[in-house]
């Protein structure tokens, strides 16, 4: 059962080669199929997650949440999606047209690209890069530019202010995000995500790197612009931040990208700290989705429980607390590795 997907992939390649394709093209076609599967997973996830978040928010705020369409309102998201797709795509007169139009496309493209290196199971990453972790971090740093393009292109003061806040926040929190992950790289000695997961077959890194876990979780929340760090789209003061002027499907693309990023970051969290595909009973490719949804539920819980944090507090928290803590984590990890090696040598 562990090898279902690997077998399917091998079967497809063999089938294509028996039809006369050279190996290179068969591999390329397989890559396209995998890309389509990633897209399908993303869309399915977003449909489930929007419903789940509204239900979770309702539960936390002691109300019902969506409850009319289907059992427990489960078809509400589909109805919303149809509404958004049929809405008019309004392009205001004074926008910077090309930047305004392409920003949501780049955003969703980058978010989907993040999934290529995530190992869903042993040997189940689409591309198992040797710099996988770095790939994930550097691509997710590009989403900053998309938000900035949206805010600038809209030619609206709320959009621009929202974009500026988002960029300031994302650049600030990128530093502790990357620094907190260095401890993991020091322990496992690799940037390849499948190596990092394989190194956790006995002990999950959540036990060895608790400080890094806290720093990474907070920084990731801020990177995702989720509550309590959702200053960039604080509805009460900025209407919808960088997305104010967007309508219909373009707005939906931003929304889709946000949830796509949420799933990607949670899956990375699972791979780095929660042992990835390791776990008893279930087949390995089922463990990652299960753990990912648990992490996502924690994100929901935090968003709907804590009030929004003021912008200056947000910035000084990163520079004065998170960055020193993640640097301390690197020092402690270095000592830990040396002590471990010394004890082993005795």
């Amino acid at each position, binding site marked *: 059962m562990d090898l279902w997907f690997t077998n399917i992939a091998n079967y497809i390649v063999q089938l294509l080669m028996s039809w006369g394709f050279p190996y290179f093209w068969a591999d390329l076609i397989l890559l396209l199929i995998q890309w389509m599967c990633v897209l399908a997973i993303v869309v399915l996830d977003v449909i489930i997650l929007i419903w789940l978040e509204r239900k979770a928010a309702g539960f936390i705020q002691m109300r019902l949440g969506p409850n009319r369409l289907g059992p427990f309102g489960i078809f509400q998201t589909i109805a919303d999606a149809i509404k958004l797709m049929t809405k008019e795509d309004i392009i205001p007169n004074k926008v910077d047209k090309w930047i305004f139009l392409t920003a949501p496309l780049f955003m969703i493209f980058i978010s989907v690209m993040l999934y290529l290196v995530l190992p869903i199971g042993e040997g189940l990453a689409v591309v198992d890069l040797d710099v996988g972790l770095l790939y994930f971090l550097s691509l997710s740093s590009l989403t900053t530019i998309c938000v*900035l393009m949206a805010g600038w292109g809209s030619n609206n003061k709320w959009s621009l202010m929202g974009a500026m806040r988002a960029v300031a926040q994302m*650049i600030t929190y990128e530093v502790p995000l990357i620094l907190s992950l260095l401890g993991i790289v020091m322990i496992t000695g690799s*940037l390849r995500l499948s190596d990092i997961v394989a190194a956790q077959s006995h002990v999950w890194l959540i036990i060895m790197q608790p400080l890094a876990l806290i720093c990474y979780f907070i920084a990731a929340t801020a990177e995702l612009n989720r509550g309590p760090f959702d200053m960039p789209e604080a509805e009460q003061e900025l209407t919808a931040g960088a997305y104010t002027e967007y309508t219909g499907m373009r707005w939906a693309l931003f929304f889709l990208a946000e949830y796509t990023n949420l799933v990607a970051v949670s899956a990375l969290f699972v791979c780095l700290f929660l042992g990835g595909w390791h776990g008893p009973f279930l087949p390995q490719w089922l463990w990652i989705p299960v753990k990912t949804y648990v992490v996502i539920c924690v994100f929901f819980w935090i968003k709907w429980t804590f009030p929004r944090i003021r912008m200056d507090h947000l910035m000084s928290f990163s520079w004065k607390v998170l960055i020193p803590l993640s640097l301390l984590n690197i020092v402690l990890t270095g000592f830990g590795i040396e002590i471990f090696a010394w004890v082993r040598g005795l």
Partner: protein
Amino acid sequence: MMREILASVSIFDIVFVAIAGFTLLCALAMILFNNIVHSMVAMIFCFLGIAGVYFTMDAGFIGMVQIMVYAGAISVILIFAFMVLMSRDPARSNRYSPRKGSILAGFFASGIIAAMLGYAIIATEFPVSGLPDAEVNQMEVIADLMLGSYVIPFEAAAILLLVAVIGAILLAKGVEKDR
């Protein structure tokens, strides 16, 4: 003749030419756009293209650093600075200089740089010492060089950057007067 050339072209050559062409096109667009924000977006794509060139040469680590540092961080800070400091109509913010002298000086400077680069490329011999070993972990090699043989220049560069950051903050905030 034509057939021989076509036969010697591999798919990697085609990919390289495509990426290099894309990069050059973006670099040209960056100079030719009238709106400085459009220029910046073109510059980001140019950086991504350069990262793509690194990837075709199997230098994944350097390519990733290129994306993270240049496309992800430096260009964002530049856009930020332009947006905050721009005081004129953005559609006319990146036009040619109207003065003849500065155009001439620009041609002169870029001509000298092009000549120097061209001479350097022609004069340097590129010995091919066998194909790179795919098994060697590039990051380990880079780390060994940076934190081993060249640790002092590396740290000196780090201190230089730190000094620059502190200086920038001092210039921006000013020295607090004695009370």
